[in-house]
């Protein structure tokens, strides 16, 4: 994922390629020039406060919402085209499956829609993968919200899509389910699939994502690797004359301590404080 430079040309090889994307709903500008790229085998987290434009961006990529300007491509195809929809799996934030279908029938229905030839073996594997093997014949209207979310994840993986877009995949899941999603996303990365994970759960994004895009009021407020965004450290140094806090990278700490020693200070404690993703996120999205 990278921010755009001048002279940008569409990248036909990227799994997801968004350039200067705009979307207005009447007078409300939901997206204002968003650009990002996700490569195969990369897991990118999409963060942002409520109303930042995350779901709108995801819906544009899935062909559910038409952009006002700019471009969005999925596996080289224009977002919303048949080719784009054929190459992605999507878990919506708010969704329902027909209550009269069983778990296995929902997956079979989406296999047919996606043109998957996986058959019974794929169904069994996906249902088992999301921990629903014991409930394969249960009707949707007899499933808890969390079980429906697991089913939603299974249907998103039908047909082994090269791009997987998960919008709040763990919102209704218990801790075990959340761990399952983390492991599953890690597996997808190993398999070389591109994953765009939209979530409010920063700790989760921090654990599974390679890179992060933070949206704020329809614009990219920040982006980069998780380590990069959370890399600003503060170092607290306690000396004989008091306590001082320095903004410094980890590599700067020996030099700072050496400076104190050269000045004849007694150094009692050196405490590096990692600025975690949550703090970086809040710095980026808070009103300035």
């Amino acid at each position, binding site marked *: 994922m990278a921010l755009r430079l001048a002279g940008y040309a569409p990248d036909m090889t990227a799994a997801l390629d968004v350039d200067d994307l705009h979307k207005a*709903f009447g007078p409300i500008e939901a997206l204002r020039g968003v650009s990002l790229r996700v490569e195969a085998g990369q897991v990118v987290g999409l963060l942002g406060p409520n109303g930042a434009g995350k779901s709108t961006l995801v*819906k544009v990529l*899935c*062909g*559910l*919402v*038409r952009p006002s300007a700019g471009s969005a491509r999925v596996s080289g195809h224009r977002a919303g085209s*048949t*080719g784009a*929809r*054929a190459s*992605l799996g*999507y878990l*919506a934030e*708010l*969704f*329902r*499956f*027909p209550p*009269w*279908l069983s778990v296995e029938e929902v997956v079979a*229905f*989406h296999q*047919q*829609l*996606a*043109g998957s030839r996986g058959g019974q073996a794929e169904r069994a594997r996906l249902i088992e993968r999301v921990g629903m093997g014991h409930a394969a014949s249960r009707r949707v209207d007899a499933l808890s919200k969390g079980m429906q979310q697991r089913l*939603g994840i299974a*249907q998103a993986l039908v047909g082994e899509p090269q791009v997987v877009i998960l919008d709040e995949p763990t919102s209704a899941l218990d801790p075990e389910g959340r761990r399952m999603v983390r492991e599953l996303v890690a597996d997808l990365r190993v398999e070389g699939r591109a994953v765009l994970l939209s979530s409010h759960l920063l700790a989760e994004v921090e654990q599974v994502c390679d890179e992060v895009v933070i949206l704020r009021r329809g614009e990219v407020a920040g982006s980069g690797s998780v380590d990069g965004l959370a890399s600003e450290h503060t170092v607290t140094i306690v000396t004989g004359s008091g306590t001082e806090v320095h903004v410094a990278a980890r590599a700067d700490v020996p030099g700072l301590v050496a400076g104190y020693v050269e000045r004849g200070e007694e150094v009692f404690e050196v405490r590096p404080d990692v600025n975690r993703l949550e703090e970086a996120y809040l710095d980026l999205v808070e009103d300035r």
Partner: protein
Amino acid sequence: MGAALVVARYVFAEAVRRRTFTVVGVITAALVGLYAWGAWVAFDAAGEVIQLRNLLVDGTVFVGNQLSGVAIFAQLFLGAVLAVLLSQSAIRGDAEQGLLQPIVARPVGRTAYLLVRCLVVAVFCALFVVAAYAAISVITGLVGDYWPRQPIMPAVYLALAIVVITALTVASSVVLGMTANGIAVFLIFGAGLANGMLVGIGETTGAQGLQDAASIIAWALPFEPLYQAAVHASAQQADGLVASVIQAGPFSGGREPSPWLVPWALTYVAATLTVAATVFSRRDL
């Protein structure tokens, strides 16, 4: 085409699982049975001749006209109810519930999805009215020796009227939520039927302005003239005062259709679904 068949099977399976076919079949059988009993009683009571004040009327023709007229109206009404209930949430209603998004995010064309949903409901509801019409016609013939003047055309007109109503319902479901759409289509349905009465009043009173206005509305809502055409094709001919008496009844007589009615109705359905598909393809979900 493959995805369209998948959607067709999905809509059909939904109707099976929700026991729509079972409920419709059982209730229709009960209504047909009730109709058979009513027809037997009515023909038996009427005898060969009915005296209406000082006018003698052929009992078979009068009762047969009234019964088949009421039956055709009932079939139109039940077919319309079925069509509306099965398709009122086809697009926006399903989208509001989150049912539509996982489907149209798949490589299924929105136009194909809309057309297939309309087609499945239209075929089912049209078959329902045709089957009910056939049963009623046979019963009326066997019980009262009253057979439709044209055996096939009333079923064709009725089926086409239901297709028009289904197309209107699916089309308006693109912009209206489930409840609003159901109300809107039933209001339009009622307006169409009321307009049919205005045509009759206009013809009886000779009010040309009323006839012209009602005629325009009838072309705008072609299910009503199709219904009138079904009644007209079903009714056995009567002469003179008897014909006037029959024509005066609210459910009997019907109106002779324009030769352009069927082509116009087919064009109307195609145009309605084209507009709906265009709007749906541009709609954010």
